[in-house]
């Protein structure tokens, strides 16, 4: 159960599970509306485009990680940017480059828990204080930081089907209320710039999360097959998101959709599972969604701890985790109301999205130029 056990290994399937489950999180609930704001009734197509952007991002990161097997981004970015003689140069150059990612992660963890808390307080447990809900979620995520990377991988691998199957079932059964004409016209009043704005907004919040692989890929057992698995791991949330976006649009239509705060949740409320014991499935959906938000929050929390541990050269990250816990809690309560929260999310999402795309590409490019690192696919365990 040590954190630096050198023999820790993650299988490719586990690595993919981590990516997929980190991506499926708080963004699910607002997705149909945010893309409809830009791309109107073709919002679902913006989701597909967002997925493609995410796949590109994942591929760059995987290639980068493959070039430096058994190293995480802190380690190899020093190597890329620095010189062999003066280690410090590498550090001084790479840290400022990586800090935006760290900052973005902190903000996202916090805001996602806050978003989660807002939904629960609005729709499920109205009388429970928001602080309690956020703190319980952060606490459980904190508990996960005690364990090794292998345990994190196993938890993700176990939870992923438990999250995906119900979400798929529910989004498929919501089609019984779909009206086809809500989805048309396809391209008439929407042009490519709208679609790309929509795609980027889809990418910024619901699709982000795969970048944790920058830290987890270090423990991969078979780096050479990772690319295929990682792209598939992005395709899974992409597929689900597309289904949900289509369903949301088809059931509600653009005008109504824009009014709904949590369209996916409303979608679930409309779903009737015929003949079963449960009349309303939304509480079951909330249960599943708790697991989804947990994997997102806990994975990124863990990644942050690993990140800081590497930067400061410490051996264990329990202290970091313990310090961060009250800090995160405090930050999550900063936004004064839900509109402010959504604004913060949008801004940080944008900034984060850009950082996630640009920085690894930069590093990859420099590593090719300076001929650092291995051949990538040829390097295996």
């Amino acid at each position, binding site marked *: *159960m040590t954190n630096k056990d050198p023999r820790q290994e993650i*299988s490719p*399937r*586990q690595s993919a599970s981590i990516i997929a489950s980190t991506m499926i999180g708080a963004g699910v609930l607002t997705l149909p509306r945010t893309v409809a704001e830009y791309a109107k009734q073709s919002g679902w197509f913006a989701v597909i485009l967002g997925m493609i952007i995410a796949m590109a991002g994942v591929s760059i990161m995987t290639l980068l990680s493959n070039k430096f097997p058994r190293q995480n981004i802190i380690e190899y970015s020093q190597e890329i940017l620095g010189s062999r003689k003066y280690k410090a140069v590498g550090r001084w150059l790479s840290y400022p480059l990586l800090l935006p990612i760290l900052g973005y992660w902190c903000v996202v963890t916090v805001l996602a828990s806050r978003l989660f808390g807002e939904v*629960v307080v609005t729709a*499920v*447990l109205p009388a*429970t204080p928001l602080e309690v*809900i956020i703190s*319980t*979620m952060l606490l*459980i995520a904190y*508990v*996960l930081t005690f*364990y*090794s990377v*292998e*345990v994190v*991988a*196993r*938890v993700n*691998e*176990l*939870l992923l089907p438990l999250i995906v199957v119900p979400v798929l079932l529910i989004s498929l059964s919501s089609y019984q209320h779909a009206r086809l004409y809500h989805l048309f016209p396809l391209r008439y009043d929407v042009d490519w710039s709208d679609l790309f704005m929509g795609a980027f907004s889809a990418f910024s919040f619901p699709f982000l999360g795969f970048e944790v692989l920058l830290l987890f890929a270090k423990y991969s057992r078979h780096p050479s097959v990772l690319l295929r698995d990682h792209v598939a791991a992005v395709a899974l949330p992409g597929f689900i998101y597309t289904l949900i976006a289509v369903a949301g649009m088809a059931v509600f239509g653009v005008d109504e959709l824009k009014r709904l705060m949590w369209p996916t949740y409303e979608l679930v409320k409309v779903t009737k599972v015929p003949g079963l*014991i*449960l*009349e*309303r499935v939304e*509480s*079951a959906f*909330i*249960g599943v969604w*708790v*697991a989804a938000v*947990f994997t997102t929050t806990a994975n990124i929390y863990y990644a942050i701890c690993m990140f800081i541990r590497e930067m400061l050269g410490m051996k264990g990250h329990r202290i970091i985790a313990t310090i961060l816990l009250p800090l995160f809690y405090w930050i999550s309560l900063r936004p004064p109301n839900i509109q402010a929260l959504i604004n913060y999310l949008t801004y940080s999402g944008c900034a984060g999205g850009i950082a996630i795309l640009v920085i690894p590409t930069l590093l990859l490019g420099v590593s090719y130029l300076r001929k650092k690192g291995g051949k990538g696919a040829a390097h295996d365990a």
Partner: protein
Amino acid sequence: MFRRIGKKPPYKKIQLQQAVERKREQSMDTLKDRNLTASLDENLQTMKEILGHSSDFVVREFQISQDGVNAAIMFIDGLANSTLIDQFILKALMIDTGKEIDANHIIQYIEKQHIPINEVAESGQLHKTVGAVLAGDTVLFVEGSEKALFLNTKGWEKRGIEEPRTESVVRGPRSGFSESLRTNTSQIRIQLKDPSLVVKNMVIGKRGNTNVAVIYIKDLANPQLIEEVESRLKAINVDAVIDSGYIEQLIEDHHWSPFPTIQNTERPDKVSANLLEGRVVILSDGSPFALIAPAVFTQFYQSPEDYYERFLIATLVRFIRILSMFFAILLPSLYIAFSSFHPEMIPSRLEIAMAAGRSTVPFPSIIEALLMELTMEILREASVRLPGPIGQTIGIVGALVVGQAAVEAGIVSPIMVIVVALTTIGSFASPSYSAAIALRMLRFPMMVAAGAFGLYGIMLFLILIIIHLCSLESFGVPYMTPITPYNRQDNRDTFVRFPLFQLKRRPSFLNPQFQYRAVRNAQEGMKDDQQGSQTGN
């Protein structure tokens, strides 16, 4: 800083005290340095000092036949079989022995020519001599010999082979282990007549000196696993191994976890099957429960019966077991969550009926649930203590009667009784008692979580359990294998049970030396033979 809080003496001090005590103790260790002498009288004296305080310690002095050499045997009455002693030792030595024998070689002479006893050993060390007597051997001292002869005369009353009481099956062998180690190992040998089957003996327990057997198939089990098991057994210390449960608790990986990481069973067929997969088994004398290491979570709802029935039935029955496991842990919490927090999930008519049922109940539903569940647990414990059929009846009837009476008294609502009944029955369906207990116990904190946060609380606690399960390892194998880390081949036998002839490989997480089992059904076999004869062999 934390140590001052508990005010326990620091570990070093404990060690010191233990060392002091050890010196004063008169256990077997203290005899280790002493040897026998050539004088019969001295040896007799020594032995009487050590064991003479007990009335079942018998000393029989005699002379070896016509030579007139003084000798004596010692044994424990009750442990040693008197018939064997009379017929094959005393008779053989006192009556049937002829010739003159040289005093120096007398022991070897006797051993080779005059004692028709099947298992003999000799030693000059005192502690081994005492150990042999206590184990049921008869020890033969001869005047002039520094060594004593240990003759196997073990024969005491034991329980015969009966049906295992905790693990009954509908189809399958009905013999179970008993308390005798040799009988138990014999039952395994009957099923696995393989020369590679190793039964290694160890003596564990400072005062118990219990024989513990480590069993494995030499060319199947992973050598690292074997070594790990053996070194753990060598490293533990205990007064006596009264039941294998002591060993289990001392060698297991995670003592704090409610989930067992070592399996136990009373069934030899289960042991044999596990040996064939590459696992290591520990049997201890005096305990009918064998330990199987390593253990993973999926084994705890699998029963040997699954493999004797055909695959469709076995798969369906397994699903029912898994479902009942979920019932056992989730049902009361779901009831609490739905009725107190999320009544919109219940169909409207049912909800009105439930509200009507609850209108007389003075407690909130969480208290109601806790009360009923606690009562069920008490009833269950009680029914274990009561003998035979009375126990079973009390369990079932008691529950129903108590439930009905409680409903009529207006203490609980009718739905609660149904929930509790389903939960209890659900927990019986798990074939492994230790795992079932874990689930039973866990439903109480889950009820508290449900009572605080409804469905959200249930999910949080479930996630905590999952994190815990994923962090467990049993002898190096992750506990949740093969669910995670996922292994497609192994999953042929987790939730579903693929047909026998398709279970071609041994579980990979055990890293056996030979991956493939020998399994082939008639159709495949005949086809192979045909092809073999066609291609000319």
